[in-house]
């Protein structure tokens, strides 16, 4: 297994470089440039714009920009005062030496630092959403399979279609209106509440000084965004689970187990469920990236201070260093996630063997 992992990791290196080259190329090829976006202000003088373009290095050809990002520019002379003439050695070390550059938009800020500031919020939200999505989805899928053709199965299918089809922004706005305005005002005349929102309409922490309290003290801030972002996963996982479970319970070994006189519960859980879950492990790879990927829609609607909005802003404002840093992190996590999923699949299914492993 170690050899398999080592081989996969070696294969990942060219994949990673390939991803960075393609993304960098697409990013530069896209119409619009960061200097125009940053300086679309008539009070900024023309030569100031040109000076900024030189300082950011965005006038250089693609291969020079990519190399500077990758291996730095301390090996070449640069125009440090942006007067049109090269005058000193560069001072960037490049991503291979751990220098992720500085954000264009947030002048001087390290992209890794910017991302790390938002990472906690995104992980917190996504772990909760994945846990609820997985638990809810698997449970509903299992019950739907066991009650095939009955009312619960039919309801779960309707729910799955709705969960997939209803856009998160619409569902989110609806939830905000309901919990923040409609319900509190409807309940107030009956002496229930004082008309204040039942749940916070946005944000991750109370708007008070002293930092964010521990997660258990602000769980109510998570309820709406987590529910809205787990709707899609619940719908998807319940369908996968139902299909997988139905396939499993129609297998010969399930029939054999029943013929041997095992209780239905024992057959479903001990034999059926364990085998039905195996194919679902292949989805765990993308899930790892999903945990940090963030969701622009959810974060925007619920003012959740995560990575999604940061990256969206970075793409819109052509903040190349932030975009590329997130691409590198995302690519590494995706590659590792897929390797982990393969290993997990092999470990959970004895029929699968690592190629090259000893018998």
């Amino acid at each position: 297994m170690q050899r398999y992992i080592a081989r996969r990791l070696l294969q990942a290196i060219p994949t990673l470089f390939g991803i960075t080259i393609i993304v960098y190329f697409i990013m530069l090829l896209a119409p619009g440039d960061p200097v125009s976006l940053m300086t679309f202000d008539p009070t900024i003088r023309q030569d100031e714009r040109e000076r900024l373009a030189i300082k950011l290095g965005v006038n250089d050809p693609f291969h020079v920009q990519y190399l500077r990002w990758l291996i730095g520019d301390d090996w070449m002379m640069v125009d440090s005062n942006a007067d049109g003439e090269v005058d000193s050695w560069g001072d960037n070390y490049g991503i291979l030496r751990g220098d992720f550059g500085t954000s264009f938009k947030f002048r001087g800020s390290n992209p890794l630092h910017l991302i790390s500031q938002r990472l906690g919020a995104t992980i917190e939200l996504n772990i909760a959403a994945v846990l609820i999505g997985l638990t809810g989805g698997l449970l509903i899928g299992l019950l739907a399979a066991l009650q095939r053709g009955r009312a619960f199965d039919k309801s779960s299918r309707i729910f799955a279609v709705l969960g997939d089809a209803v856009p998160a922004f619409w569902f989110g706005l609806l939830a905000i209106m309901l919990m923040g305005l409609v319900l509190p005002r409807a309940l107030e005349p009956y002496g229930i509440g004082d008309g204040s929102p039942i749940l916070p309409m946005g944000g991750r922490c109370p708007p008070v000084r002293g930092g964010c309290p521990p997660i258990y003290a602000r769980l109510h801030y998570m309820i709406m965004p987590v529910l809205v972002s787990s709707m899609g996963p619940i719908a998807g996982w319940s369908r996968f689970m139902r299909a997988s479970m139905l396939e499993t319970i129609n297998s010969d070994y399930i029939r054999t187990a029943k013929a041997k006189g095992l209780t239905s519960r024992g057959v479903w859980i001990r034999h059926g469920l364990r085998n039905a879950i195996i194919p679902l492990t292949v989805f765990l790879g993308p899930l790892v990236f999903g945990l940090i990927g963030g969701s622009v829609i959810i974060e925007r609607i619920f003012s959740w201070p995560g990575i999604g909005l940061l990256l969206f802003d970075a793409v819109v404002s052509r903040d190349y260093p932030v975009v590329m840093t997130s691409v590198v992190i995302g690519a590494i996590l995706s590659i590792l996630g897929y390797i982990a999923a393969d290993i997990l699949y092999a470990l959970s299914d004895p029929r699968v063997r690592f190629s090259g492993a000893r018998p």
Partner: protein
Amino acid sequence: MGTGKMRFLLIILLLLALPASAQEFEEAPGPGLGGIIIDASTAGDPATFNPLIGGDTASSAVYSLLYPSIIGVSPYTGLEEPNLDGAMAAGWEYDETGTVLTVHLRQDIAWNDGTPITSADYMWAVEATRSGQIDSPRAGIFQTMADGTPAGGKILSIEAPDDYTVVVTFSEADCISFSDVNDITPVPAHVFSQLYGDNYAMMMDDPRRIPTVSFGPFKDVEFASGERISLIADQAYPDSILGYVSPAETVTLQVADENVATERFIAGEFTIIGVPSIRQEDFRTDPELLEFPRYEFTGNGFTFFGMNHANPDNPQPGFDEEGNLLPQEPHPVLGDRLVRQAISHAVDMDALIEGIREGNGFKVATHTIPTSWVYNPELQYEYNPELAMEKLTQAGWIDHDDDPDTARICQDCLFAREVDEAFNGSELTLDLHVPAGSDIGEQMGLFFQAEMNKVGFEAIFETIDWGSAFLPELVGQTFDMNMLGWSLGLPVDPDVSAFYYPEVDVPGSGFNFGSYYNAELIELNDQARVVPGCDVEARAEIYARVQEILFEDMPYFYMYVSESMTATQPGLGNWNPTPISRTYSQDAWIAPEMAQP
């Protein structure tokens, strides 16, 4: 007395009348006992808390509360005035050449650690900006950087002969350079020099360093990325309206979606909000929303359709490499002033403002906004489709089939006469582009398309992405008609050099993206910039003619100035909004308690 002078005096009288009626404040419960102000911002994270390297809206919203300006802008008149709260200048004068400005500083203000605020604080900021070591968007105010590199501005030098005097020398007399002096924000030199010494570039390494010494109604920034910025009251602030700062704290929460922000305000989570134009009518008419006190005012920006006067297939700069004026091929359609005027008669702006914008808009026909001291209400586009068609015919665009629904064709139109005779027979067609993402913008684009097509255009409307399509074709000068808006900084000066001079006609980056050129306009604008003493009345007379030229030439189809609305929770005390500022009195506010679940 001419009507121009009369109008000018009326505006001045109106502005003078405002302060007297607006300066009464009630006593608050006490220092820091006036509650917590909570507002929402859609501007994202501030890039920095350092005013020397900041330039974005989110950053300036924070550091404007922490540092003084050298010359204050009155929240009542929008003009620079001496001895204003939060500003250093006690007065100023020009020498007889108009090139040397001497600013006398107040001697009664100090940083919150007790150190007096002096000219050294301004000079440290000047040296840092001019050093070229920092990415400052303001370095361009100087003629040269410290190492002699040309910077393009008009300030030759800034000196401080003593602790309370600053002398600015300009390369030439220029009224608009006065505001350049204010582009540089004084910082506590005793703190900054200790932190950075002469190595100004170090400021770039720590852009979000929390200021420890400040001068303003609030201090001690607490920042949570993507979440909130909080500042607490600074009772050491000597310029507070009541003699103390009333609110305990001001918190700005980041809310990316303005619809959500509005709903959260209605639910009682925010003290104050700028009401989006799409919800303004609700706040005027919905009985449930009438409880919120609101203030409506004409904004300081205008929306327009930029029109390309030059051939979009061959964008050229205003000057050639030797600095000579470069004649440009006219735009096949919009190069002719008669066609541009025809468009102004074809579109019913009143219907657009009443229908699509639900009345939220003040119709304009030049670059000056109603609160400007040169605004001329007599200049208005006349909606007259018959006249539009007449002008098109006059311009050589004829209705060849007597069907107004089909596009007219060129018969000896300007482009055929001056550039290519083969253009005769071409259809009167134009692309109208609006940035994607705004329903109202899309409706306005469709309205323009329909109105123009009624008089014989084949206008093709499309919404396109701002960053990847709209901006590149606009600054690349390859567009026909693109809709956007300018938000003007304060104080608003009627100078047009940033928009209509050939120097800024640079494909790819200049702001004269329509390649408009009028020698008389440039001459008049230049005259207005060197009026002795920058006398406002004398400048207004010159700009009266400048506006007439812009009205006739139509470099843009000027559309409207947005009617803006700010709403607060009931019971917000000492809220005294003006068209210039809705928050200048916030150190006296008595904020009601906000709803929290």
